[in-house]
């Protein structure tokens, strides 16, 4: 019952976050976007007549005062209508939906690779000889400080141009997914691994670890069955960071590897001032955050009984 109430509260808070995201992006775009009507009618360099522009403004409600535009926008949102893309002339929802599958595939595989890599290195290197630790943490530092596109280029040059193991670009099949996945996953894995190792080393100093060892448990089992679960709490807390990294990284990765996907869509929408589409993608990202945080909350309860009963 308490668990349900807790989740209900978080759900309500999540709706608040969505509303905030909608409002903020609405404001931001109206302050900076320039003439949306112009953007709608044509790309740069077009020269429509005033009459055409006025008609477009009336069609999209751009001639109304700002607060009316805002309320209208919120009202349509509540009906699930994200508006129509200026450029593509299709509903925003379906524009995103079309690209979603590719991005979800990339994001999930990257998240999986990142977590597996991070947990693996952290468990193997926590509280080991100094040179092992330094080697691991040095590599991690390099990976986190590399810009994503440089990392992607390096991977392309080595594994695509030279070794020829993977295709340079495109969306075809698993082999086309490998390089983008690692480009996206490595920086995230590196940060997660650093946090996880610090956490593991702290946990491995705890008295209950000594107790477990004093029962005759082998080191690997102590790490996996006792210590890891405590350290994972920290990783679950960082899931917000992971999603941020995945969404932001997807834009760059998809561009670099010329993949279809929401990241590409976002980039095009922004450069062409396609306001409804940008707002749609922002709201979509916020919704992902909210849902993941809800899931994280439930997972917390499963990992750490103290969250629920304390």
């Amino acid at each position, binding site marked *: 019952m308490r668990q349900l109430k807790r989740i209900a509260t978080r759900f309500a808070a999540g709706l608040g976050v969505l509303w905030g995201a909608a409002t903020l992006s609405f404001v931001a775009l109206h302050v900076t976007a320039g003439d949306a009507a112009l953007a709608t009618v044509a790309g740069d360099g077009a020269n429509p007549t005033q009459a055409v522009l006025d008609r477009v403004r009336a069609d999209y409600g751009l001639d109304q005062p700002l607060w009316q535009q805002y309320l209208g926008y919120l009202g349509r949102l509540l009906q699930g209508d994200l508006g129509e893309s200026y450029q593509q002339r299709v509903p925003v929802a379906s524009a995103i939906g079309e690209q979603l599958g590719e991005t979800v595939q990339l994001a999930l595989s990257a998240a999986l690779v990142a977590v597996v890599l991070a947990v693996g290195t952290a468990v193997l290197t926590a*509280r080991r000889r100094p040179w092992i630790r330094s080697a691991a943490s040095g590599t991690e530092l390099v990976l986190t400080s590399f810009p994503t596109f440089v990392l992607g280029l390096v991977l392309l040059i080595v594994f695509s141009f030279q070794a020829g193991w993977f295709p340079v670009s495109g969306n075809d099949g698993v082999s086309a997914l490998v390089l983008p996945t690692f480009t996206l996953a490595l920086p995230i894995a590196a940060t997660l691994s650093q946090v996880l190792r610090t956490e593991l080393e702290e946990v491995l100093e*705890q*008295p*209950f670890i*000594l*107790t*477990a*060892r*004093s*029962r*005759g*448990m*082998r*080191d690997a089992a102590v790490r996996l069955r*006792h210590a890891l*679960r*405590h350290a994972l709490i920290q990783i679950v807390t960082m899931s917000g960071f992971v999603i941020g990294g995945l969404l932001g990284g997807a834009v760059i990765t998809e561009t670099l590897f010329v993949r279809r996907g929401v990241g590409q869509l976002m980039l095009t929408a922004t450069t062409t001032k396609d306001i409804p589409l940008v707002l749609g993608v922002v709201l979509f990202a916020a919704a992902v955050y909210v849902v993941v945080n809800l899931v994280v909350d439930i997972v917390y309860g499963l*990992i*750490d*009984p*103290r969250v629920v*009963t*304390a």
Partner: protein
Amino acid sequence: MSARSTAPGHIGASAVPAAETTAAPLVNVDDLRVSFGRHGVDVVDGVSFTIAPGECLALVGESGSGKSVTARTLVGLTGYGARVRAATLEFDGRDVSRNTERHWRGIRGAQVGFVLQDALSSLDALRPVGREIAEPLALHTTLAKAARGEKVIELLRAVGVPEPELRAQQYPHQLSGGLRQRALIASAIACEPRLVIADEPTTALDATVQAQILELLGELKRGDAGMLVVSHDLSVVARLADRVAVMRAGRIVEQGPTRQVLEDPRDRYTKALLAAVPATHAKGTRLSSAPAAVIRATPREFDRTTPIVAAEGLVKAYAGPDKVNRTVVREVSFAVHPGETLGIVGESGSGKTTTARLILGLERADGGHVSVRGRRWDSLTPADKRAERRRLQIVYQDPLSSFDPRYTVERVLGEAIGVTGLRAGQRRDRAVELLEQVSLGAEHLKRRPLELSGGQRQRVAIARALAPEPELIVCDEPVSALDVSVQAQILDLLADLQERLGIAYLFISHDLGVIHHVSDRVLVMKDGEVVESGDVRQIFTAPAHEYTRTLLSAVLTPATQGGPRA
């Protein structure tokens, strides 16, 4: 290597007949040395002892004496980067000094059970206690899962846990301190080990619970398993051990039967250690110097016309996590007069600290009121309140967390002195003066908290409290985190300051020995209520309330107060 010199009298005796060695020791340690790091000093420096089957040996010593390291070496868990050397290191007749990790794993949990202090941190917080107890069974026996579950229930019942089926499902934080410790003991004895090692098994527990756990450990001892108890607390040792080894700086300074060591110690350090315990007969005397010097006659007389602080019917409630109000202090009334010490004693959660916070005006009471020198806190203007607050100071249990770690002692004291309005130029002199009052010197001014020992930190905390020349110092468990010899020094210092400056103390402690030693009058608290109050002698010799009697009977008396119980 393990052949020791034969007993005198056996001139030229070749081999001792096998029949005579039936009482071969379970544990045989000779000249054990342990160091950490490549060039570390020996933290265990030539330690030798034996434990016979069915025997309980106690390693006694203060923090850093090497007792825990010695105990952990017996299961091959000395620690990261440890170097262990010994002439003999035998368990059950087998040399274990060259054991591989695999060999050790066969011994740990199966033949040696290990009980650490503070079961809250010694049990995995994320697993039900039943699974923790089942772990050694899964590692060392062929029992199936269902059979392990049954065995867990059986073990919990054996260590005196009520409703074992329910408890096995619960997590450590859902159990009381006593039940947790019992669960930890159950996991240590699950595989019926030949040796049980208990490292400070009762240290974090309340007196009444401590007595129960010691009783349980005493029962375990009755079989033919050996036991090694590691403790800083002589009273624990007096109850459990057959023999005692006193450790200091990595060496055993004295070893012998418990009664002999506690009643007729040979070594100077053992004598000082025993003298430092605030035993009944030591009241009014110094604890830190042997032979005991009298500080003052007891009982003392006080002017009881105007109390420094008076509490009238204090009530305080907090909302719990479930939004239900819990009354933590109910109808508490008392007064502290100039120059006297009022002791507040009670177990954890009895409302002692909340009462102190109400007295200091750090919390607002939900009912009743506090008067400072005849004037009610709530009637004072903010300026008056600030002025009165200076007369009331506090010393906490853990000075490390009550200092900013980046501040030097000079800055810590300077801040407290600044409140009194002294000009900046004179602050340093005043700081040195304060340090001298607590037997420190100007050389400590530039130190930071981490560069001081626990006792020195507590002295600085006292110096800070003295800065505004208070009339009352609230001492909230001021010696609970200290070793007994340091505790003795701090208690002596507080008594000296009271003699010299006429300060009154409100002294909060869970330790009845300490309370008896320092107090003129005592309040006994339980569940937020004062169950008994009055003159310290009267309460300790003729307690009127049932709870006070329980508390007193739970106090573990070291041998100096009447010998160990058989």
